[in-house]
């Protein structure tokens, strides 16, 4: 076969494979992704039953743990609107009041139920020095 024709075929095959991968990646990402919401957005909307959301906000002081279930409220990063959340499982070490968390939740009655293993408390260690001290 003519070498230039051979190269063209190889190029088309490689490009097709890349396009296929990109299309599959885009489709899978959109279909398997979770929408991120702040507490005020969840509170003002009517979440669809069984719909999973990624809740992002800060832990309100006064959370309670009984057994391995923790009841807490999450508020907006820069606001006071909060939603109630229950979480079953071990809490991450950095979890405490006023810490920023990310958790996948599903609405069950009046409460948002945290999905096991999805609670992430942001590491407070780095790059958040309190500038008011200086």
């Amino acid at each position, binding site marked *: 076969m003519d070498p230039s024709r051979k190269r063209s075929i190889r190029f088309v095959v490689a490009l097709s494979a890349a396009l296929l991968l990109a299309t599959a990646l885009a489709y899978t990402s959109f279909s398997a992704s*979770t929408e*991120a919401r702040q507490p005020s957005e969840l509170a003002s909307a009517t979440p669809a039953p069984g719909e999973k959301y990624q809740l992002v906000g800060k832990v309100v002081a006064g959370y309670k743990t009984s057994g391995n279930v923790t009841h807490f409220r999450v508020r907006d990063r820069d606001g006071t609107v909060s939603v109630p959340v229950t979480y079953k499982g*071990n809490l991450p070490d950095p979890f405490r009041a006023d810490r920023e968390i*990310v958790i996948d939740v599903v609405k069950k009655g009046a409460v948002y139920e945290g999905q096991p293993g999805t609670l992430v408390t942001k590491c407070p260690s*780095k*790059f958040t*020095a309190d500038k008011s001290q200086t």
Partner: protein
Amino acid sequence: MLVAGQACLIVALCSAVYGAGASLYGARARRPEFVASGRRAVYAMAGASTLAFVLLEIAFVNSDFEFAVVASHSSTTTPLFYRLTAMWSSQEGSLLLWLFLLGVWSSVILYVTRHRLRALAPYAQAVLLGYGVFFAGLLVFLESPFRRIANPVAEGTGLNPLLRDPGMMIHPPMLYSGYTLLAIPFAFAVAALITRRLDAEWIRSTRPFTLFAWLALGFGIVLGARWSYHELDWGGYWMWDPVENASLMPWLTATAFLHSVMIQERRGMLRIWNVSLVLATGVLAILGTFLVRSGVLQSIHAFGASTLGVPFLLLIGGMIAASIYLVATRADQLRSRNRLDSLLSREAIFLLNNLLLVALCFVIFWGTFFPLIAEAVTGRQRNIGPPVYEQFVVPLALLLVLATGIGPVIAWRRATAANLRRNLTKPAIAGLVVLAALIALGVTGSVTALIMFTLAGFVLGGIVQELWRGVRARRAASREPLPLAFVSLVRRNRRRYGGYFVHVGIIVMFVGVAASSSFKEVHDVSLNPGEKARVGDYEFTYVEPTAEIHAAPNGRLERIAFGAHLRVGKAGGDTKLLHTSKDYFPSQDPSLGPVSRFFDGETTTEVALDASLYNDIWAAVAPDIVRLRDRIEEGDRLFERAADDLTGEQAGQFLALALRGLTERYTENPPAARFRLEVNPMVSWLWVGALIIVFGGLVAGWPPRGGTSRTVTAKYAARVGREVREPERVPA
């Protein structure tokens, strides 16, 4: 010290600005004295940033809380080792570390190449000094580590307890070494493009730096994974967090470059591809630094307070625009002299390897930035979890391992059927033997893991075959004993055999990842003392609670640890006693009571770990201190009432008694504690694999004795002649 430190940063900035200008002027006006002056400006920048680094270290060691950064990231109870390393847990300190390492590595490469690459050096200097201007500028104008604290404090906040792990404290310098070393090939690539000197000379000169950048970055990534596994209470080592991904992406493109550069050196092919990979790697390294500071993505790391996003975006935008312009305008000179002769050739397999690595990088890039992509498309941020990554990464990784097995044994240019038969039969048999053995042993729970183990057998079979052939030939020629022949073989072609060792390490790691992710067993359980839980074949017994008060070397209370002794073993077999605890570090928050501040500060889990090559027994406790809360609050009230009647010494003594009483109450009347219990197969293979990679990388990158030149003896010339006649046996 504050003034001296700030002065050092200003000197570093001025040196970088002057040096960049002098280098460019020297190159344009053909004035070598200005180019030499520019190089000396790099040394000056390195010296000034080193001095600033040392001054800040002294402040941390002496707990000088006049420094705002020391007050917010260290304390007198922080152990010396962690005071020495607390600097890079801060924004300011980590930027200074970047500048310091950039200065050191830039000085080394410019010194080493001072008599070579004369045409390229001025522009490479200017690029490296451009980085210096950027980071020194950030330190001088936006994030100075030499800021005085407004309200002096007697005690600092302390280093986050989660970071008090030796591996974690080495992890940032390794990552930053990787990032800063990657600036070197980037700078020389830009210089080669500007000067249109696009032969392989700049690649050969910077290759050791690329290799050590790759090694440092890779080792840093593994240290981070090991920290996560040892220090965090979830028992994993990788969670596809944007910050983790940010370090993996440049590592993947650097891996691709280290392979494809061999094709350019040997066949003059893939020149556009190689220069693009180097430029992309340089951009991705800065992107990683940007991601951890911008707060644009949700991550386990909280970086939202940073204001450095815009300057970094401008830098990245500039780098991308310049890279595209330079490659586009030099495309004609970059065209390859040769074409791919056959898909059955080493070049083709290396190209496949490159495409797979870039595809992996693309998948990770897509997943990392998907929240922003989704927001742009749908108006709302959406996030994807590990399953989406794994759906694409796993098949690509399997194909990559297959290519790793074929690449080193297939012939250059065009492989014949005889060549394939000769080189692939034994490795294929090795893979099939592994598969048969696993099926016979009943290891059939995961098809993905089975494929990975089979491919691992195939790759290792190929490497053993190559080593054996080399040793046999060496023995035939020299009559050396087997071990000596092996050492001589490796010494004579370190790049090739070092690369094989790296492949062995990668395969060992992949086997560890496949086994630990496919066959991991986890059980979250609440236990009272004396109760048992079963995880896989192992039985965990909660023997007794523990409670300890730990004092710092200066006598102040460092932490209180509530834990558990666990007895673990297989039914009827030997058992081991393991200990896990949760450590409570006192808070500096003045609004908390004198007793409760010891329980409402930071906490960290000390994991119980019994590691072996077969599996890891892993346990973490979450003690329930709710029952102590009434006593803690009562203690707060008592101290508040008696505050005016007690001297400082008396208050300290009473507080010590109160804390001792609380710990005794916990151990005498223990509540049920929650545990995460895990049996993780072959996790240790990850760490062993990483060490093998480091060894292989050092072998491959170690400079040959007597520099890069090689005396051409008649014997050597004869060997080269033989190799030219037998291209399929030429070393990689």
